[in-house]
């Protein structure tokens, strides 16, 4: 059968061919580094995603200004991984298939990060993590995983040692959510604290569906004198927990004597939410918006200019911002694809960002602990830096 193309068909075919040619030409000219961002945008950990996006948007404006780093533009695609291993796994597979990122930033929650790490390792796409503390993430032999967040080991060791030596604590009750990160933080604290001579009176874990913490506070009150309460949970639950402990007169904020200790999980503003119950709370922070370092004051000013004069950036904003700065720095150092990004990251030493200086060790973990500060919540809910 002889099929003669109609003039209309020919015109459509020519138009499509022209579009394809224009598309490929512009692709060839445009130098782009594709960054997949996996963050919890829904669910109880969604505050990570919302604040993370703010930090990324601000950083992108700055690094993509003008010609961009080494003539490249960073192109970002956000995805909701919901702090869930299952959703994060499905999402990262889809992103790899459709967006074909050169690098992935995320996730915040350790369980989700642990789930996507092997997939990215297999795809040979670097993962830059800024919010998970589970030790296994950088202790599993992955070559494409880099983390700028102190591990549970790093945070827990300092918390445990300082609780014993600086606070003179001898008894502790561990409070932690039932996740990889929660367990890792509690385990590390217990190991260091008991090795120094302290005693753990109880380990109390809780699921993310626990709403009322009064029974837990009652149990702790019945344990007798407790010196410190290392607490590892998301902000919403930790606020309720602190309030219940104050009502049971366990912690200083409620007229008790025990001191709650916390990790970097809690963002700036936690004290205002928990109210007087948070008085005396001592916690690790990686980003201090009151720091006078130029990098920090510039970041604060840019953040306020973009999001409102009354806004103060949190460590979540800062971590996300820093992640983009590090990708841009790797590109400036010659990275053009996943493999060269991995190579530049592995050689980074002492790169200054808002949360301190980043030096990756052989496992991809930042090893510079100058980024860690300790702060104590005062009666007026402000922070007092601890000279530890």
């Amino acid at each position, binding site marked *: 059968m002889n099929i003669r193309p109609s003039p209309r068909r020919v015109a459509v075919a020519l138009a499509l061919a022209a579009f394809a040619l224009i598309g490929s030409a512009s692709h060839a000219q445009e130098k782009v580094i594709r960054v997949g961002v996996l963050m919890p945008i829904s*669910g109880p950990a969604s505050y990570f995603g*919302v604040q993370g996006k703010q930090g990324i948007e601000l950083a992108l404006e700055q690094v993509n200004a003008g010609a961009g780093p080494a003539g490249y533009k960073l192109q970002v695609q956000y995805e909701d991984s919901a702090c869930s291993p299952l959703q994060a796994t499905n999402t990262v597979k889809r992103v790899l298939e459709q967006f074909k990122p050169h690098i992935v930033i995320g996730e915040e929650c350790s369980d989700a990060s642990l789930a996507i790490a092997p997939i990215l390792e297999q795809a040979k796409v670097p993962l830059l993590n800024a919010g998970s503390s589970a030790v296994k993430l950088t202790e599993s032999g992955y070559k494409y995983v880099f983390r700028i967040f102190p591990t549970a080991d790093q945070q827990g060791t300092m918390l445990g040692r300082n609780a014993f030596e600086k606070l003179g604590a001898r008894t502790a009750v561990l409070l932690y959510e039932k996740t990889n990160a929660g367990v890792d933080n509690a385990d590390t604290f217990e190991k260091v604290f008991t090795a120094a001579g302290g005693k753990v009176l109880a380990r109390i*874990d*809780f699921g993310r569906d626990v709403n*009322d913490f009064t*029974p837990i506070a009652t149990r702790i009150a*019945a344990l007798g004198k407790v010196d410190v309460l290392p607490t590892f949970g998301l902000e*919403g639950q930790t606020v309720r927990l602190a309030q219940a402990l104050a*009502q049971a007169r366990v912690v200083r904020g409620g007229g008790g004597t025990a001191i709650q200790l916390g990790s970097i999980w809690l963002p700036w503003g936690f004290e205002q939410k928990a109210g007087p119950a948070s008085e005396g709370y001592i916690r690790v922070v990686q980003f201090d918006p009151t720091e006078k370092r130029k990098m920090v004051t510039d970041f604060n000013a840019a953040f306020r200019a973009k999001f409102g004069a009354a806004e103060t950036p949190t460590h979540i904003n800062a971590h996300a911002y820093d992640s983009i700065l590090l990708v841009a720095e790797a590109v400036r150092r010659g990275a053009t694809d996943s493999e060269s990004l991995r190579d530049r990251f592995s050689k980074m030493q002492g790169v200054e960002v808002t949360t301190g200086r980043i030096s990756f060790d052989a496992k991809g973990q930042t090893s510079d602990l100058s980024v860690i500060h300790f702060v104590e919540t005062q009666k007026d809910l402000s922070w007092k830096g601890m000279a530890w």
Partner: protein
Amino acid sequence: MSDLATLLVQQSINGVYLGCLYVMVALGLTLIYGVMNQINFAHADFVTVGAFTAFFVATRFATKVLGLGDAAAYLVSIFIALGAGAVLGLLVNAVVFAPLRERGDELRPLIATIGISVLLENGQLALFGPIPFQFDSPFAKETIRLGRVFFTGQSVLVVVASMLAIGALYAFMKFTFTGKALRAVSQDRETAGLMGINPDFLIGLTIVIASAMAGMAGALIGPVLVLTPFAGATVIVKAFAIVIIGGFGNMEGTILAGILVGIIEAFTVQYLGSGLIDLVVFVLLLVMLVVRPTGLIAERREENV
């Protein structure tokens, strides 16, 4: 009082408070099942709507527009949340359930509740965003101490409000003509219709009452929840368990099961560990299903002929 006695009393108080919160959520579920033989998967979201309504009324409208004090504003917010739940129930019944009932299909209304749940969750996500709201009740700041035992003003409010709501619902069902008619519909819809009762009106009324209770539950439980558009989901699984343990559709059983689960939870935290709460509650549920599938208090139901 000895240390042990103090502890037992304190955890019992904690358990009753927790149980009352669960009962407030579970009653609406059991009411709908009792009358309609239908499970409402959107119930958690009705609770969340109530919590958000109460939050915005208590922290914005009643304090800033009406100029009320914090305590009065919160109390007003409970009634407005109850009303918001009722209006939502009315709308959902008119737009979704009533047309589906007319088609006589039992499966579609069930699936529709899942659709309503997704719609409400995502609608609230679009409106309020995902960052948790800090909803503090002024009554939660008042700690009442009797010797070494303590409870908050919020606990008292929750227990009193639960008792009043339960009492009002019970009186309505047992002593009013409409309540008796509603029970008749739950036992045999066709025969009740032959007696001059309008089953459609009463089914609609059931949805409105159950939704109003969910709204009120949201206002009471809001200051305990981490308030996000998904907040209700953290209590609904436990509420379903309570409805099953109490006996599907049985109000007295639900009340008893709710308080029992609350007390069991408090003592599980004390003696076994809070990480085992779900394990203990759901083992209890399985035991009930095996040993006494009709629930704690079995209700005699005649099969429709």
